[in-house]
């Protein structure tokens, strides 16, 4: 046997141990090195593939770094005005109740300008899944302070560190939303290790499954990094996240009914 035929024998279906899901497109991602968005996108794409719901899934992308999420997942997408994704998703799921509808939002989009929309979508218990990526900063506009920015954290608009006396306190959105009767599943996850991603994927699947039962919204917060905004290397970012974000935004399920 020549080396070539040996190689040909190896590359066949039975021997495949890993294959990128086709729901994740081949477009080159615009995210910075170390950014969590890519990992989360892939996790969502894999769950959509596993559940075989690609034809029935509608995503709503926000304004923020993930505004172009529609370039990466091969599903139908709506691109919302800043903060309004839950309103789009509300109408979409009400008008097409057989579909799986999700929003994908950052902390500026969801926790600041879109606070009313997410609060009321949760309160109404819409049958949608919300992915809330919290990296404690506005990434796309160049690293400004977000509602979730930690006390003392340096950003472009809190250059001397966030002063809570004048700028308010970092908001624990998941805890707030878990109090609403309309939320069914509220969890805070991360995606910095294979184990964390496995847990995240379980939560994503649960969220999508919940939408079938019309019993309230599933809210999945993912604590992530922003190497560019935090001005740290990808490795240092993960360390900073574990040291500073996790104590203030503890991981785990807040509500599962």
């Amino acid at each position, binding site marked *: 046997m020549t080396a070539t035929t040996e190689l040909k024998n190896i590359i066949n279906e039975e021997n495949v141990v890993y294959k990128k899901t086709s729901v994740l497109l081949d477009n080159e991602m615009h995210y910075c090195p170390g950014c969590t968005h890519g990992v989360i996108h892939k996790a969502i794409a894999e769950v959509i593939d596993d559940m075989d719901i690609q034809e029935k899934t*509608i995503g709503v992308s926000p304004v923020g770094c993930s505004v172009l999420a529609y370039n990466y997942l091969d*599903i139908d997408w709506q691109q919302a005005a800043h903060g*309004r994704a839950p*309103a789009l998703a509300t109408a*979409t799921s009400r008008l097409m109740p057989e579909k799986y509808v999700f929003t994908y939002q950052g902390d500026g989009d969801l926790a600041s300008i879109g606070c009313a929309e997410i609060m*009321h979508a949760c309160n109404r218990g819409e049958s949608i899944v919300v992915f809330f990526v919290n990296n404690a900063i506005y990434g796309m506009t160049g690293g400004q302070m977000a509602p979730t920015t930690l006390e003392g954290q340096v950003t472009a608009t809190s250059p001397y560190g966030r002063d809570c006396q004048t700028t308010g306190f970092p908001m624990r959105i998941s805890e707030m939303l878990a109090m609403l009767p309309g939320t069914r599943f509220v969890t805070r996850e991360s995606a910095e290790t294979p184990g964390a991603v496995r847990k995240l994927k379980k939560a994503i699947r649960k969220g999508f499954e919940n939408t079938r039962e019309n019993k309230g919204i599933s809210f999945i917060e993912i604590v992530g990094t922003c190497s560019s905004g935090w001005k740290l290397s990808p490795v240092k970012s993960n360390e900073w996240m574990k040291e500073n974000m996790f104590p203030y935004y503890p991981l785990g399920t807040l509500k599962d009914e």
Partner: protein
Amino acid sequence: MGDIRLMKGNEVIAEAAIRCGCDGYFGYPITPQSEVMETLMIRRPELETGMVVVQAESEVAAINMVYGGASCGKKVMTSSSSPGISLKAEGITYLAGAELPALIVNVVRGGPGLGTIQPAQSDYFQAVKGGGHGDYKLIVLAPASVQEMNDFVELSFDLAFKYLNPALILTDGVIGQMMEKVELSEFKPRWTEEEIIAKSGTWATTGKTADRERNISTSLDLDSAKQEIFNHKLQAKYRAMQENEVRFEKINCDDADYLFVAYGSSARICQKAIEIARKKGIKVGLLRPITLFPYPIKQIQEMLGQVKGILSVEMSAGQMVEDVRLAVNGKVPVEHYGRYGGIIPTPDEVVEALEQNFLGE
């Protein structure tokens, strides 16, 4: 004879929506148009046609629900009054930018600010010149009767889907609150999923199937060159509307020496003013623009050889008069008569204004 009723303009908007197969209404209460959503809530169309009605947390949320619903290829609408329309401006420009069909109803009240709840026409600029950011236009229809409130709901949806552009019904507290005899439209079923895919499958987010690329409902293109090309496309669309969709009505124009130009409830007042003026021997007619965009420019120009003066009558400080003047281009005198802040001009005042401006009295 069809289904004849005595109904308020606002109630008719709701009834017409149900009957033309509207899929969803998303609104927020504001005087003087709350009857639209109230009527829908009483009618419970979800049991009858499956139409969805949602009271949103704000006008901002309501218009963005419209964006979501429109993205699905559904017939969706919202209604509000002036301050609420200002809040919806963001969503409206996104709809125009994403080329989404939708119906917005503005039952105008006096402004600026919180203003008054009484009728006005002071949102003309907002309706036809923009309102939100960017170079976009809405198809703007101005009903002058409760019957037209009925008729223009379906017409607005037809035009919105024909051009993939939001349409706006610009009315006011007079037409919204008054009752008139109205012949309601026949019931039409809502579109099925198959019909939506056949009609709008190239863009609607109905779920990506294996036989097509994914559909993306967006107004974003970071590439300026592409954004300019897209803007050219929009402008071509607006030119096509100007070419094909102008609607107007002429009353007593054949022998007119003078012309009123007025829309909506002002046009009704001008009709009475014509009766009064003609009794005095003043030959005056009315050109009533039904579409405010596209505006009946040619139709006004056709009158220029005939009339000695034009009076634009509006419940505003003088907004539409600018479009009349652009059409007339200095060829005959154009004056404005308006009452504002919620005051409705009387027919006698209008005749007086005509006399003062053009008859040297």
